[in-house]
């Protein structure tokens, strides 16, 4: 059984034309699936459909066999970091736990570990307004990871991070997903990132899924020829002529 499944899903915002059309896609448990596509093609909408934040106007979205949102614990990173201004970084990260219980020592330890992994330990007591843009994104990421959800829906989580942090976090994310069997749906504009992270990469255009590529294990090494070739195939599907060096 697939973990997350779109069945000919269509969606339109009330009063506007369709932004997602006839999307059929299923993610196996533990799969890391990347979504690329031009700005405005419907990636965020698809992610929100997966999370059950939007209800499909056509078809259905199944999460572990039940219409989303079911009971599956999921982590979501919004495209813009959505932090609560009146909570410190620490409390923002602990929010998912504190909504379920009094955060215990274990939660606090998990939070501290995430903050340290994301280079935010020194900022744990600051308020969001006192952070740089990238620090805010990382806080939002830490929050999504805190409860070790079975499904991660990430909307360009690394967009405002520098190359080093970004590559570190890509590796961390991959390790984490593999070790815990977390299913990941990952939206990105960076084709290299998609190829590096994804078991499969889907290309979305005008709300339709135009192609899905399976990425072979040897394409995972960034300076391999297979990596470059996979990137080239995705770029082509996106309609880009030029290929990089």
């Amino acid at each position: 059984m697939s973990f997350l499944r779109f069945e000919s899903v269509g969606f339109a915002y009330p009063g506007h034309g369709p932004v997602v059309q006839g999307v059929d896609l299923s993610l196996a448990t533990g799969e890391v699936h990347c979504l690329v596509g031009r700005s405005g093609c419907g990636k965020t909408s698809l992610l929100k459909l997966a999370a059950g934040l939007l209800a499909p106007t056509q078809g259905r979205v199944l999460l572990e066999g039940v219409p989303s949102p079911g009971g599956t614990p999921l982590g979501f990173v919004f495209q813009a970091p959505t932090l609560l201004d009146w909570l410190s970084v620490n409390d923002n990260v602990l929010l998912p736990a504190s909504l379920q219980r009094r955060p215990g020592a274990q939660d606090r330890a998990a939070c501290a570990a995430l903050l340290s992994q994301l280079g935010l330990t020194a900022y744990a007591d600051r308020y969001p307004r006192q952070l740089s843009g990238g620090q805010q994104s990382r806080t939002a990421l830490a929050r999504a990871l805190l409860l070790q959800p079975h499904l991660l829906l990430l909307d360009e989580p690394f967009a405002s991070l520098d190359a080093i942090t970004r590559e570190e976090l890509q590796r961390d994310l991959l390790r984490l997903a593999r070790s815990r069997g977390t299913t990941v749906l990952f939206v990105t504009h960076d084709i290299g990132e998609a190829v590096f992270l994804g078991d499969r990469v889907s290309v979305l255009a005008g709300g339709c899924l135009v192609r899905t590529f399976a990425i072979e294990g040897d394409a995972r090494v960034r300076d391999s020829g297979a990596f470059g070739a996979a990137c080239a195939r995705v770029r082509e599907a996106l309609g880009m002529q030029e290929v990089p060096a």
Partner: protein
Amino acid sequence: MKRAAGLLLLVVLLALWEAGARAFALSALVLPPPSAVVASLWKGLASGYFWPHLRATGVELLLGLAVGCGFGFGAGVLLAELPALRRILMPYVVVSQVVPKLALMPLFVVWFGFGLTSTVVITALICFFPLMENTLTGLAQVPPERLELFRLLGASRRQTLLRLKLPTGLPSILAGLRIAVVLALVGAVVGEFIGASQGLGALIIAAQGSMDTPLMFAVLVLVSLLGLAAYQATLLLERRLLRPYQP
């Protein structure tokens, strides 16, 4: 500096008032000079004449404020969460507000008896509304992304209210509280105009009855001081509660 400027302004105003009262040789009936008011104030305070009345009004103010703000906040939350209820109940709320309490006081007396209860009810009724309206507005100001966040985190309705909507609406709710505090004092004093034999409101009517305008102004000074103290307390509370908002 600001404090000094404020004090200076006060002194200037009082001096103008005193000079005016003397220059126009106004009868104390029309406008008593501040010196007469201060004398009357001093006398009342020193003789202990004012204290029971000040206490009575203070108690009513606190009780009325507690009840009114409790209901106002509760109603604001309820109507914000159940918009259908809002359309049905709002007319009654508006009617309860526009009907002059002074006219209804006889009925309150019938329902709630004399003294404390009636005045507290009036006070509560009056300060209920601004808190309700501002709570209603404040709770609606949550950006939709944050509501989505809370939905995703599986927050219950209660949690969304307490941990998202409430903190977001806090500045607005506190503005309502500032209005409520001020109105509550007016409510308490006006309630005493009719239904009470004690309290600053009763004293005002008594002073008017014996045309003792210096006494009346002295009582008004007490009312003002009580109001300023209550308002200042609200500001302090506000400063504490809003601290995380202004890092």
